[in-house]
């Protein structure tokens, strides 16, 4: 950090030492989210920052103490809303672990497809916003069109675009039909070219490289001490990925690599996310091939056989009495809940999204705590921007991929 520290060289008590206080207030230009930064600036250099979060605190943990399991899934949607299927499936996996439910392989592979699509969607937003902050608006507008293709796939599976509430405990609510698979094939055909073009705009672009290399750097030891996970940690050189270290949903059947950076600066974070998108594409292709290998009766499996926890199909709910009663009971939480205490984590778009679930056998969780990666690594922002110029501080903030919904929760 030599280039940045040496600029704060006015001695204490000197008459010229006056810092300007700049309030980078809660209303950012639409893209970043609501958190406030009070920057102390010495000319153009940032001396210190004070963050204020909580502008969108929605009390998820208190609400979750009142709601049975299925009613918590819409809450988890709104944590990291750019990649909400990962949150939903993570919550369902936590419930399955507590209840001791094992999902069939086809369900696992379909879940992997949806989660990797969500990861691509999240990294696309982050990388294109980094581009917008350095002045390149074109990349953002160009790839937003391809996020629409991902939304169409979600719509075909669960009916909703953004906050998906996808799946059930034990699988999915309906089988992926031919339209969903044809949309997936269209995405797999068209997207690699687009990603290549998007990368060409930035990867070896002189302006972008000079803006982002060397700024917002952090070392691996400090990052681990700050509790970084996800692409921000991998950019510093530590290859910790929950999908590989504690695999869930049959991730161990897939062949992919974990990209790591070396210096942890903005450019490495951008590159790690870009490379992760390529890896996600390869995982989706592998998963799609594996799904197509199931034939006959196995190809119709889309949920585990647990009628006491899996909502009955809607056609039965509207026509048969037992299905209606089961549906009501499961949604209102009148089900067998074992007592237990469980911590389970998945690899979200920003890192390790953890669910600490204490159940006392009642309808609703006794305590549900979300380990939210954005909240934990935003603490490091003063250290990342000490001595940086104001414009670099802005780019650092957007390259960390701070999603306000996840930060405040």
């Amino acid at each position: 950090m030599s280039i940045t520290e040496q600029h704060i060289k006015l001695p204490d008590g000197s008459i010229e030492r006056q810092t300007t206080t700049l309030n980078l207030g809660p209303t950012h230009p639409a893209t970043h989210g609501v958190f406030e930064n009070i920057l102390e600036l010495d000319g153009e250099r940032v001396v210190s920052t004070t963050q204020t979060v909580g502008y969108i605190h929605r009390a998820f943990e208190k609400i979750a103490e009142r709601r049975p399991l299925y009613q918590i899934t819409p809450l988890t949607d709104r944590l990291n809303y750019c990649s909400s299927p990962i949150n939903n499936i993570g919550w369902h996996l936590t419930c399955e672990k507590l209840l001791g439910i094992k999902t069939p392989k086809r369900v696992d592979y379909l879940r992997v497809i949806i989660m990797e699509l969500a990861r691509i969607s999240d990294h696309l937003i982050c990388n294109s916003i980094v581009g917008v902050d350095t002045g390149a608006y074109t990349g953002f507008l160009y790839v937003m069109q391809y996020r629409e293709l991902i939304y169409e796939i979600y719509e075909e599976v669960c009916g909703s675009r953004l906050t998906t509430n996808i799946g059930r405990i034990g699988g999915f609510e309906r089988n992926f039909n031919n339209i969903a698979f044809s949309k997936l094939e269209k995405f797999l055909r068209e997207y690699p070219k687009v990603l290549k073009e998007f990368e060409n705009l930035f990867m070896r672009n002189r302006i972008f490289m000079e803006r982002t290399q060397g700024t917002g750097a952090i070392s691996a030891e400090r990052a681990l001490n700050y509790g970084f996970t996800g692409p921000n940690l991998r950019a510093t050189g530590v290859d910790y990925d929950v999908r590989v270290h504690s695999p869930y949903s049959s991730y161990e059947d897939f062949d992919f690599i974990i990209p790591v950076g070396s210096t942890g600066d903005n450019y490495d974070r951008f590159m790690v996310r870009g490379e992760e998108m390529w890896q996600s594409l390869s995982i989706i292709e592998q998963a799609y091939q594996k799904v197509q290998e199931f034939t006959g009766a196995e190809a119709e499996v889309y949920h585990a056989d647990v009628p006491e926890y899996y909502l009955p199909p809607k056609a039965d709910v509207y026509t048969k009495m037992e299905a209606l009663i089961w549906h009501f009971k499961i949604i209102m939480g009148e089900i067998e809940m074992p007592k237990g205490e469980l911590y389970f984590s998945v690899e979200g778009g920003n890192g390790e999204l953890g669910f600490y679930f204490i159940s006392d056998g009642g309808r609703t969780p006794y305590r549900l705590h979300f380990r939210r990666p954005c909240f934990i690594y935003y603490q490091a922002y003063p250290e990342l921007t000490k001595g940086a110029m104001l414009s670099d501080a802005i780019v650092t903030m957007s390259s960390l991929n701070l999603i306000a919904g996840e930060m405040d929760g």
Partner: protein
Amino acid sequence: MARPVRFNINSNVKLVKEGPEGYMGEGFFATGFDKVVGLARKNSIWPLPFATSCCGIEFMATMGSHYDLARFGSERVGFSPRQCDLLMVMGTIAKKMGPVVKQVYLQMAEPRWVIAVGACASSGGIFDSYSVLQGIDQVVPVDVYVPGCPPRPEAILDGVMKIQDLVGKEELRRRTGEKYKGLLESYGIQ
């Protein structure tokens, strides 16, 4: 020499009657002043996207090329309230954020409109908790509410079109009248 018309010669496409009623003559068109002002204002609204959470991402999709808010005249989104007409509040507003919304509203110049996009901005949404403002109409007067969680981009466009309706039909003296002042007084705004 005029170029020959190549498109839509034989189709049944009819232009929607865009203009207001008035008296037309050779080289002039006379109509009410407020109708002309309304027509000009409604087709060039400058919105201020106050995006806090998930609805903000749907707004980004609305601004994108697939759903395209720009064809309704809202090409230029501004982030300074002093230059904008329409405050689009998208997303949950917590009690901590309430004073900020009010301050941004106060900084806007008349005539100003407010659209509450999403269930959280309209009424608190699914978050009936101690820290969420149950609807922004507790702090600012709202013109159009768009329900949905999040509303589809088509729904947001529908909300913007309703705002355009309101803008086009607004009478010129409304903002200086007693009733409007009474409305602002009820929110504590002078």
